[in-house]
């Protein structure tokens, strides 16, 4: 379970995230969306313990991240958009390393299963430099899952993956939630979030613009329209309260007109 209460992160005088509160129950999949610079990554990095929150309370699996960070992080897996792997460790050595850090007792059983499941068995003795980007993502996934986390954070998980890998990653994310993990996915791929998420949190300029189940968020911003999808919701939230951007002046019409297509 993820509980965020009044999360605020200041960079000097600038509030990247301000008074943000939400909860993700076990089994729920929360899609974190917002325009560029809205504070999504800052929020995720605070939740992952990478950067300290200026104010607010973050509880992961019941543990306060500020007062009991080690216990909280034992239940956490954070997947950055760019997989972070050690240059000189093979795939199998990565798993052994992470297993020791997290104290995974049954790592010797779990590691081969994970490698098998992620189709990495034949790459177990390969270095990251010998792997494609998709493969590296899979290694990062294996490392993140070896300790059976109950709090999982994904930052743009599908970047750079081929359609097959996208399909498999989506299935993996769904399975993790089904198994009882609380999952947050930050992504700009709204159709992906609409497809797999149970809940949506829209952040704009560091504050919560919308939060609830997918249906609730849709209804909240439907304004009487039927069949409003997440993209439309996002557009309405993103442009709410903003002046429409000025239109670029059109070039003077060419008297000769456009050349005919041949």
């Amino acid at each position, binding site marked *: 379970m993820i509980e965020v209460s009044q999360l605020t992160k200041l960079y000097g005088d600038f509030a990247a995230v301000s008074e943000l509160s939400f909860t993700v129950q076990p089994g729920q999949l929360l899609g974190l969306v917002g325009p560029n610079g809205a504070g999504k990554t800052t929020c995720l990095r605070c939740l992952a313990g*990478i*950067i300290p929150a200026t104010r607010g309370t973050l509880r992961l699996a019941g543990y306060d991240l500020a007062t009991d960070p080690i216990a909280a992080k034992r239940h956490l897996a954070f997947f950055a958009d760019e997989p972070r792997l050690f240059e000189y460790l093979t795939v199998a050595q990565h798993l052994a390393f992470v297993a*020791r850090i997290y104290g995974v007792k049954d790592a010797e059983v779990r590691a081969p299963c994970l490698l098998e499941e992620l189709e990495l068995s034949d790459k177990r003795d390969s*270095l990251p*430099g010998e792997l494609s980007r998709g493969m590296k993502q899979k290694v990062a996934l294996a490392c993140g899952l070896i300790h059976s986390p109950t709090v999982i954070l994904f930052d743009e998980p599908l970047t750079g993956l081929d359609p097959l890998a996208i399909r498999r990653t989506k299935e993996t994310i769904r399975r993790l939630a089904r198994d009882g993990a609380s999952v947050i996915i930050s992504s700009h791929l709204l159709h992906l979030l609409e497809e797999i998420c149970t809940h949506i949190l829209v952040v704009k300029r560091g504050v919560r613009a919308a939060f609830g189940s997918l249906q609730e968020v849709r209804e909240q911003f439907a304004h009487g329209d039927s069949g409003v999808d997440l993209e439309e919701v996002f557009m309405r939230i993103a442009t709410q309260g903003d002046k429409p951007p000025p239109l670029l002046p059109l070039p003077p019409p060419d008297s000769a007109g456009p050349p005919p297509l041949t």
Partner: protein
Amino acid sequence: MNTWSVIQALFFLQSRSLWNRLRTRIRRLRQPKYLVGAVVGLAYFYIYVGRFVLGGLFFPRSGTPGSPMAAGFDLNQRQLLEGMAATGVFFFMLGAWVFAGPRSALAFTETELAHLLPAPISRRTLIRYKLASLQTGLLISSLVLWFLAGRLLAGGHALLRIGGWWVVLAALSLHALGASFVVQRLTERGLSSWLRRTLGCLVGFAVGGALVWWSRSTFLAEGGIPSSFDAWRSLGHHAFTSGPAPWLLGPFRLLVRPWLATSGTEFAIAIGPALLVLAGLFLWVDRSDVAFEEASLERARRWADRIADASSRQHRVGMPKPTVRPAAFSLRPEGNPAVALAWKHLIELRFRPRNHAIAMGVFVLAAVGIRVAPDAEILESLRNSAALLPLGMACIMPIFGVMEITTRVRQDLRMVDHYKTMPLTGQQFVVGEFLGGVGSTVCRQVVCFIGVALFAMAPDSLVVPWPILLGVPVALLTVGPGLIMLLAILPVAAALLFPAWMQSTKDGPGPGLEATGQRVILAVAQLITLSVSLIPVALVSVGMFWLGLLVSPWVAFVLAGAGGAAILYAEIAVAIVFLGKAYDAIDVSQEQ
């Protein structure tokens, strides 16, 4: 888009980039730790460099306005110097023909190419853009060369010297560019690289041969090989001022004359012809209509790939690709997580027990060989020297151990955001960082001490008494790891307290003046810390040693080692607590 517009855009790009970089660094100084570093760095630069640069830039040094080297020379010596410098420039330029690749490639960055190639800019304008952008680097190089030469040879007016250097460097870079264009055109017309290189070498041999031939005929006419330095100098002067040299080296002499000018007037006279040569080179390059774009794209892509590769591998560009390295030991999934870090470091350090077993085997074989060799008496005399080699190695190994620890910490801090998501306490992180370097160093020291013992042991005469032979390694191996950690504490503390230095190559503006200041502070602090922390260790060790001597030297060494080690490790434990807190306090969002 005309050339002037592009040059204006270039000026805007460079000036804005410089200003923004400066602004980011100044913003970093809001943190007192970087501000202190900047102040010390500024003072260091002023004392070591600034006062010479600022003093020499506006006022002639030592009252001599001319070239520091040439000013003190007579006419003959100056002509000799001019001939030698011209010969150097000639061979440097010849190298551009011999060593050039088959395709000319103007060095653009990927970003420059992405913006400039699709833009409505002619090829000639692109070349001019590149030439203009090179000037900043040339001016900086001129300044550095002037400073280096000025520090070595006092005297000379800075502006004249910088101007002289600039003429030579600009000519070399223009010529290298022009030569690469011609080489590409010739290659496209079927000239093979080996033929071009052979022709280049032949030209080199021809010019060099002509100069040597003329010199040889001169000294043969004057009665044989000169026997004194003055005679050699006179011969050199003759060789460069008569015969083929003045003709062969004519244009190159024009280029180096401003650099050798001894007064403002001489410089003014010399700069005209030099600028004419430069103008000729510029026209040559400017009129070259060679399709360099594809090669430039390829070059920029390769370079970007290498940087990206090095960045992802946290290595410098040009480092070899990694290979699989077996683990030093099997890592169990349960236990202290710090061991995992040490295990990882030992893999990165290529530490393998097998290699140490091999090294020990070599020592054993060498020691046995000395015993059983037919000329055992001669070899026996080498025994002492042979024992010194592993002893010396064991003594310098702590230095490498400290370097290993510091390097690992710096590399791991580049992935601090990754580590921060792990359930690792700061103290576990620090202990893990120390363990790898200390463990590998101690293992190597053990092997070396075994080597010392094997060489020092002899049936008839023991080189070193047994108590010392065993006591010293035991004492050193007890205190040694502590000493390595003690030496590593400050560099590690610096890395943890100033992580922006480590991340700067990837994301930030790079270490600035404050980094130099921090290094100065670090060096001084290292000395002070080492001295202060070793005083109680030494006092306790000496006390225990004297106490132990009442029993036996064996006991004395063991007690000295144990007493010193106890104090040392207590100090280190305190330091690890502090360093762990420093790791916990790292806020990556503040380190830009």
